[in-house]
């Protein structure tokens, strides 16, 4: 039977690309939905997110979906993308501070405006473009070469690249987390739906991932 993937729609803007990329990745039925029942009954769930962490958390809570997400990950695989990954941590420092879902310990902080590369050039913020992801052992990377480039666009990041939950790192001024995981949860700071073949490959892996780390 064709599996169902719920892409959670909580008012966070463009979900078109995420839905299309998941559909393109493999055989599945993709539902873009804010309905708690549809999300709970899906085989897998994608939690996207763009813009500000505070707005995303507010959008989730207003729809009562924060608790749905926390329930889902007890039972089946969930993939967080960009701000959808960030809100799985404990908190964010933007605006007045944002309390997040707390699935992963640690917080999201802003890139420094005075970072330099090895040549001494000032680094631009947002971190925008294709950067290399150094993988740590994880089944979601199957078939994707280490240091493959993915597309990033963000001004905040999970800075503790040595934390236990980190399964992929990227370097921009300093190392930061490109991917976080624990059983049933995989979050990426980059946009697989904008990362060409490598991104589609990652969504394909998600469609067969059993949730083990």
């Amino acid at each position: 039977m064709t599996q169902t993937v719920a892409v959670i729609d909580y008012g966070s803007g463009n979900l078109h690309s995420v839905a299309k990329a998941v559909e393109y990745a493999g055989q599945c039925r993709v539902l873009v939905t804010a309905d708690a029942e549809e999300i709970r009954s899906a085989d897998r769930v994608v939690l996207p997110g763009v813009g500000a962490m505070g707005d995303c958390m507010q959008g989730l809570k207003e729809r009562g979906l924060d608790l749905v997400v926390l329930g889902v990950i007890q039972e089946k695989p969930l993939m967080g993308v960009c701000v959808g990954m960030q809100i799985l941590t404990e908190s964010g420092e933007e605006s007045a501070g944002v309390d997040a879902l707390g699935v992963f310990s640690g917080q999201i902080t802003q890139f420094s405006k005075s970072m330099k590369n090895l040549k001494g050039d000032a680094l631009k913020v947002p971190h925008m473009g294709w950067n290399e992801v150094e993988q740590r052992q994880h089944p979601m990377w199957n078939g994707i070469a280490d240091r493959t480039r993915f597309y990033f666009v963000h001004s905040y990041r999970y800075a503790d690249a040595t934390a236990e939950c980190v399964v992929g790192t990227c370097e921009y001024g300093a190392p930061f987390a490109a991917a976080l995981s624990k059983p049933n949860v995989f979050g990426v700071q980059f946009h697989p739906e904008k990362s060409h073949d490598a991104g589609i490959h990652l969504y394909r892996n998600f469609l067969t991932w059993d949730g083990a780390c």
Partner: protein
Amino acid sequence: MGLAKRIIPCLDVDQGRVVKGVQFEDIRDAGDPVEVSRRYNQEGADEITFLDITASHENRATTLETVSRMASEVFIPLTVGGGVRYLDNIRDLLLAGADKVSINTAAVFEPELVKKAAEKFGSQCIVVAIDAKQVEQARWEIFTHGGRKPTGLDAVEWAVRMVSYGAGEILLTSMDRDGTRDGFDLGLTRSVADAVTVPVVASGGVGHLNHLVDGVVQGHAEAVLAASIFHFAHHTIGEAKEVMAAAGIEVRL
């Protein structure tokens, strides 16, 4: 190794067809935007920029439909611009599948639009497009309406102001060079790139692959944009990347 410099083919689209003019005049047909973007995607383009050069009211639906078709099969970032005047235009384009929306003339007449757009949709998807012409030694001014109307605004000061309003990227076009194939205006590019904290995309004048190298090395651009050099199969994106890599620039191969 780290962040790669980006190569961005640009599709100037007039009534649903890709065209490219020399200094915004003489228009040549280069095909269907979806087909053209599919080819660039396969060749390894890092992003695609789509500029709706007619941008008439009647044309809006066609543009949204084209953007939606592109976003359904091209899984790299897509920037869309041309005639963006209201928050609703931006929302419609983002919902159709654009990742970034570029605001040009409207930013000049209503700078607050940039601030509101960045607050509402996030800086990461708001690009301010600047069309500049040199007016004296080391001074460039903003021109609107395809380079015909001067505004008296200094290009560098304007870019800094737009970033303070929340622009997440600057798309900088030299109207003196656009369509000439003489290379980027490197003085303009470097002046703006060094003055702002966000990425600058250099545009206007690429006629040779080495011009792309110059834009990064001498112009300090994070990304380089070109249209006709790629459209008429003069060069592939892959060739452009090889030339950049050979010059020591980090690119996604």
